[in-house]
């Protein structure tokens, strides 16, 4: 039983149903039923043509459900006038679904949930487990999202940027459960980058691969964070790095720079350094300048200040930091780090303690508390 195969086929099968005229919400339910039936029955003998099998079973489910609910469906069709136009061809199916599931009328959490179900083929239970909410809550979130987009007409291509934001969220804010959300985000972004001609889709894919490559080195077995400078770089996934760098170089050569390409360039420069001391910080500062120019994002400014501290010394970093809003997330932690580098251990210890109280995640709080304790134990 190959669950990965089922997930990969999900958007194709859903696209076929919608193209045959099934309303999106009903088609999506039918495909989930077919996936569940495949999980139950394929172990006893998988079909020769898995996609054909899924289409047949899903379509039968849809027809049965429609018959059972015929009166309501007729009423809805009358009310809606005509069903929303589906994708024009099989090649557009998957892309059409990406745009629909990331539609700007959805809240970020709804777009994430709908994308994971309709495009990634995850079950409601798996998505609920990944985001630590009850299954009933996630089921409602998904069905509301489906209602929200049910009247959407996608007669022209959607905005790739909205899809990229949703995929970035899936990658960056994955929690736990039995599904690797980062790996799913990479799979979906890879599929998207192959379907659209858009350097930022490639940029996001490169960014994900380059960060995913460091995952084995990011935490200790007991869950403590290992900062970039202290990571065992032999544990980085060199295959993922090579792929990420190659994808990024091709994207950059198109000369249509965007925020994901710029972020990926920073990650590539870290990946390229055999040791932390050999990091090309001046070039990283230049990429952060680009990122600030592109987005004006205050977090990019904060990261730039830290990079300036590495490139030009801690006093230059502190000067750059002083120009920023002290309420920014991680501002205090960055200040603590730069003060220690500048030799002011007492201030650094105080700031690390303060940063630990402000931390938004438990591993960060533990890490920052350790830093404060280390400085307090050795004295000023």
């Amino acid at each position, binding site marked *: 039983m190959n669950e990965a195969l089922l997930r990969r086929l999900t958007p194709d099968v859903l696209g076929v149903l919608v193209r045959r005229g099934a309303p999106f919400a009903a088609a999506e339910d039918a495909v989930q039923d077919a996936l569940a039936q495949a999980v139950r029955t394929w172990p006893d003998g998988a079909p020769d043509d898995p996609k054909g099998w899924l289409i047949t079973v899903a379509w039968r489910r849809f027809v049965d459900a429609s018959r059972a609910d015929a009166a309501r469906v007729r009423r809805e069709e009358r009310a809606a006038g005509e069903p929303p136009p589906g994708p024009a061809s099989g090649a557009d199916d998957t892309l059409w679904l990406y745009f629909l599931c990331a539609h700007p009328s959805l809240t970020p959490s709804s777009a994430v949930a709908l994308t994971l179900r309709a495009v990634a083929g995850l079950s409601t239970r798996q998505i609920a487990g990944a985001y630590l909410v009850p299954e009933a809550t996630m089921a409602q979130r998904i069905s509301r999202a489906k209602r929200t987009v049910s009247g959407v007409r996608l007669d022209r291509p959607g905005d790739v940027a909205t899809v990229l934001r949703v995929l970035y969220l899936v990658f960056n804010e994955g929690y736990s459960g039995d599904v690797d959300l980062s790996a799913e985000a990479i799979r979906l972004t890879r599929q998207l980058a192959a379907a659209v001609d858009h350097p930022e889709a490639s940029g996001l894919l490169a960014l994900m691969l380059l960060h995913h490559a460091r995952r084995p080195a*990011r935490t200790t077995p007991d869950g403590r964070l290992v900062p970039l400078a202290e990571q065992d770089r032999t544990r980085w996934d060199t295959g993922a790095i090579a792929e990420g760098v190659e994808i990024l170089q091709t994207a950059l050569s198109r000369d249509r720079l965007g925020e994901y390409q710029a972020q990926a360039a920073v990650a590539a420069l870290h990946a390229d350094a055999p040791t932390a001391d050999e990091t090309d910080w001046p070039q990283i500062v230049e990429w952060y300048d680009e990122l600030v120019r592109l987005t004006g994002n205050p977090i990019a400014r904060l990261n730039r200040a830290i990079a300036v501290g590495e490139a030009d010394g801690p006093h230059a970093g502190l000067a750059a930091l002083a120009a920023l809003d002290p309420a920014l997330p991680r501002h205090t932690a960055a200040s603590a780090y730069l003060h220690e580098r500048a030799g002011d251990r007492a201030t650094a210890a105080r700031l690390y303690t303060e940063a630990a109280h402000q931390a938004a995640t438990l*591993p960060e709080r533990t890490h920052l508390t350790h830093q404060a304790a280390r400085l307090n134990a050795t004295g000023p």
Partner: protein
Amino acid sequence: MAKYLLLKHYRGAPASVNDVPMERWTPEEITAHVAYMNDFAARLEQSGEYVDSRALAPEGTWVQYGGEGKPPVTDGPFAETKDLIAGWMIIDVDSYERALELAGELSAAPGAGGRPIHEWLELRPFLTEPPTVTE
């Protein structure tokens, strides 16, 4: 997406506007209050934002490790404890603003005279998992 705890206090929160203890309400007012709370939770489930809600008994016991080979030491309850938690609701929402809005709605639960209690609720963010992208 972020999870927040809405914390209700028996004691320790500033006084509410409609500050009449429940045992002095009419039975109908109590029924209306309970119905409002149940309806609030049901609406949150419908909107895909509900995670959990629990009520706690007011009487508790303080427990402490008693040392090697000895039973745990118990004490209390202490009448002088200033802060006493009554229960909580956990929500999963898109923004801090949405969390504030929902806390405001919960605080509007009807009390004596059927008027909103304006109870002070404590809103606390959960610590999250670290993000994947770190620089």
